């Protein structure tokens, strides 16, 4: 298989027809069906084909020098970015083991991690190793617009791990502060109102006695509109708000008073168990913690969960942020550099240690 790959590498740039010829030769023992040709085409004509990624090697070299691997035993659990020359590194907190974390520097040297500070809301961890004169990356602090080309860099001379785009400009993806009932809904038969399909136990709707099959007609005296409009109206209210809902069950209608919960309380701690639509999970493993970040840039960089924690880099070789999560089939998330640097700077100024570039 290795030899076959080498042959194919040489053939890159040739037409598919030629490739089929090369393959058919190599596979003369076996009938080559069109499906295998398809697999070859996918690999050779894909965005992660090795000659494409190699185009970024020089550009990514400085970022690679500022990126470390984090190991649990011999297994990589994440990358990390050096933020202070004297051995401070930032990474994705939830991927790291509680003890026994080892940092492998770009030069191959392995060091024990001696301190760990967690920034829970961002799922970031600041780590300390005993080292001096480490290399720092160049940070990009300008806003990143949608359509900006991004590379996920590895450690040392690994080069690019993934190529993609800034898909959506930076935004808040937190569920905190949004009203929540704990209901599954569908449009009611006849088009008027919304019908309850699920009730989440322990949440406001259930506590107020709403049940599956109930039809909700009015919210605060006004028609509920569509399912989307109703959910938007509830989300727009603050947790703790009391709302009046006109509910029809059987032949009779009654008004129910419900005190909204915080949507975050539903998602908190359950990130890994939030039901993802099936297609969103197709095509690879996702990070356990992949939702609820105060500020993130959405990208289409394809990363394994253990490849998070490293830098996302623009075409100038500048680090736009840290790859914080593989979210869905179509989405990975990056915490922008300015947010990252503010957190780190605040931490050190409180701690009374050093400026950004000691």
């Amino acid at each position, binding site marked *: 298989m290795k030899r076959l790959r080498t042959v194919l590498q040489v053939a890159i740039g040739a037409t*598919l027809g030629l490739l089929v010829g090369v393959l058919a030769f190599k596979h003369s023992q076996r*009938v080559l*069906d*069109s*499906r*295998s040709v*398809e*697999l070859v*085409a*996918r690999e*050779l*004509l*894909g*965005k*992660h084909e090795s000659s494409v990624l190699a*185009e*970024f090697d020089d*550009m990514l070299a400085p970022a690679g020098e500022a990126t470390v691997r984090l190991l649990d035993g011999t297994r990589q659990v994440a990358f990390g970015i050096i933020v202070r020359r004297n051995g401070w590194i930032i990474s994705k907190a939830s991927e790291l083991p509680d003890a026994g974390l080892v940092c492998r520097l770009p030069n191959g040297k392995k060091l024990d991690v001696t301190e760990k500070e967690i920034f829970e809301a961002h799922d970031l961890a600041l780590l300390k190793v005993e080292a001096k004169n480490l290399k720092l990356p160049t940070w990009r602090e300008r806003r990143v*617009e*949608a*359509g*900006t*080309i991004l590379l996920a860099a590895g450690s040392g001379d690994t080069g690019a791990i993934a*190529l*993609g*785009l800034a*898909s*959506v*400009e930076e*935004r*808040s993806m937190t569920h905190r502060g949004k009203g929540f009932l704990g209901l599954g809904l*569908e*449009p009611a038969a006849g*088009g008027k109102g919304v019908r309850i399909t699920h009730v989440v136990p322990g949440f406001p709707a259930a506590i107020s006695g709403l049940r599956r099959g109930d039809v909700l007609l009015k919210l605060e005296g006004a028609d509920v509109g*569509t*399912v*989307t409009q109703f959910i*938007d109206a509830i989300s727009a209210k603050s947790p703790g708000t009391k709302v009046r809902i006109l509910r029809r069950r059987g032949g009779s209608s009654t008004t129910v008073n419900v005190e909204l919960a915080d949507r975050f309380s539903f998602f908190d701690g359950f990130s890994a168990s939030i039901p993802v*639509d*099936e*297609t*969103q*999970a*197709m*095509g*690879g*493993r*996702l990070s356990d913690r992949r939702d609820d970040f105060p500020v993130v840039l*959405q990208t*289409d960089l*394809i990363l394994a969960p253990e490849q998070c924690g490293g830098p996302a880099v623009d*075409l100038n070789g500048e680090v736009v942020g840290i790859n914080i999560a593989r979210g*869905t*089939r*179509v*989405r990975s998330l990056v915490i922008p550099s300015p947010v990252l640097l503010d957190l780190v700077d605040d931490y050190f100024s409180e701690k009374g240690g050093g400026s950004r570039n000691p």
Partner: protein
Amino acid sequence: MRFIINVFLLSLAWSLTAYGETTDPIKDWKERQLWIRTIAKSASPAVVAVEGITTPAWGSGVVIDQEGHVLTAAHVILSAGDFIRVHFPDGTAVRATALGANLSSDAGLLKIDEEGPWPYADMGVSAETADGDWVVSLGHPGGFDIDRRPPIRLGRVWSRSKGILATDCALASGDSGGPLFDLEGRVIGIHSSIGEDLAENRHIAVEVFKDQWERLVAGERWGSLSMLTSAIDRPDRPMLGVILRPERGGPPGAVLKEVVEGAPAALAGLKAGDRIIAIGRKRIADNRELMQHVSTLKAGGKVNVRFIRGGKERTLSVDLIEAEDISFPDTQR
């Protein structure tokens, strides 16, 4: 809300010619980045989310003229029902009427009820695209979200045949009907289906819409929706007749979500929940390996399927039949 994408792109093209030939790959990439950012800015206002109101369903679409004709996927129209609303990225929501649909090629057409002018993108020519060309996709994965513009994604065309383009621009549920753009900002395809592999994303070539424009505008519906696009691709592809459960992590193997009634796997005795760990002598680590391995076999033969049920390993001999002989339940998005 109105904008003319052609003018913008034309002036950009003018400024780009000044770059001339380059050998520095990063310089080439910066040029591509200019085009892509322009598409993100100028073409995304024409990328709509399509909402089924009577039957809740989300798809995508792209407006291709001022009057408000919206290209989408036929299966989006079928799942959305008669009462349809389209949402523009800026939050504008308007009623639309379903016109024609070619179910065989999954091409569908909507028309916005309200008078325009609406923001639109131009249609291009997918035949001008070569294998390996860079493209971008837009759409509303997961449905409309007022907090974000439709996410833009990068990929390359790796196959073009019979009115279908395949790219590695990753798509997900809700993207169906959304546009695939060439780097000049012209619509060359409409999102139709995906496979387990991240690189398996299929788009209806824009020519399918152009060639059948009169029939689509006239509201004709014809053909039948084949539920597995790979079967359209290659009807003799070998299959067991199983639907796999998407899974992350977990022990090695591929877990059956369903077995298709009357198909070989069900006839041989495989059941939902079984974890397939080997086909013949080939160990199966995950869904992708199972699909890839089965696709290299020949329809008409038998294979030994090794699987785990209730903690015990078992083996059954299963026939492989051609994809077109299996009628799948609705697995399309």
